[in-house]
């Protein structure tokens, strides 16, 4: 077993365990911490896939900004009020549905993809240089990039408007 394969299986195991831990944890804080660990292990998988920029964006945006926002809201609402338990006996239908989706995904993966699924990666990769990615991003994808800034602005305005306390006017 090569080092890369060992690294992949270790990271995959961490990702799967933390994903399961997030789904089944009773406390919202533990769910958030499990999700951070999951995001970090996936970020290292991105490094294995020669995507250093995406890996660091994953760490800063997902594990950093988004999860801090989640934890902030958990603390704001109060941890003790967030306990909503699920009934172990009533989840069989959902388990069947999830299993069906998984089987469908694997069938698609190995039947439809056929030969391409077992294609090994090219060893010589051209993807490791982030400045090459920036060239594609700022030429072919310039309009979507600019639109993203408008989307983020709208999201910011939306968040502010939604959480603003409406003061009742005294007559």
């Amino acid at each position: 077993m090569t080092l890369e394969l060992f690294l992949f299986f270790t990271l995959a195991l961490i990702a799967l365990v933390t994903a399961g831990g997030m789904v089944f944890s009773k406390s919202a804080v533990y769910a958030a911490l499990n999700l951070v660990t999951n995001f970090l292990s996936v970020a290292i998988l991105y490094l294995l896939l020669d995507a250093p920029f995406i890996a660091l964006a994953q760490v800063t945006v997902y594990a950093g900004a988004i999860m801090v926002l989640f934890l902030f809201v958990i603390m704001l609402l109060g941890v003790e009020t967030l306990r909503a338990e699920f009934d172990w006996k009533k989840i069989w239908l959902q388990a069947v549905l999830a299993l069906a989706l998984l089987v469908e995904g694997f069938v698609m993966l190995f039947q439809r993809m056929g030969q391409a699924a077992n294609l090994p990666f090219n060893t010589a990769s051209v993807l490791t240089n982030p400045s090459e990615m920036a060239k594609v991003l700022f030429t072919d994808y310039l309009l979507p990039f600019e639109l993203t800034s408008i989307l983020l602005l709208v999201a910011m305005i939306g968040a502010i408007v939604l959480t603003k306390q409406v003061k009742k006017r005294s007559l």
Partner: protein
Amino acid sequence: MIPVSYYLALSAILFTTGMFGVLIRRNALVVFMSIELMLNAANLSLVAFSRLYQTFHGQIFVFFIMAVAAAEVAVGLALIVTIFRSKQSIDLDQMNSLKG
């Protein structure tokens, strides 16, 4: 080298876990985290394909997905806070005001 199918299989399992979380949990915050997990699984397969076909388009798509996810989280958490203010709960089963 690792075949691309390993990454796709991991992505499929992570996505299914996220969907299972959306289905079984009734806490709106944890459901939201499960949606993030599903987005992340999709990102993983996009980066794997990007690596397989040696083009940047997959990675750039992931970059845009991250921006959209950040916007979605900002608005979604604001909605959850607003719902909590009016109902004093974020249990999804209690959000049935529009039910006929």
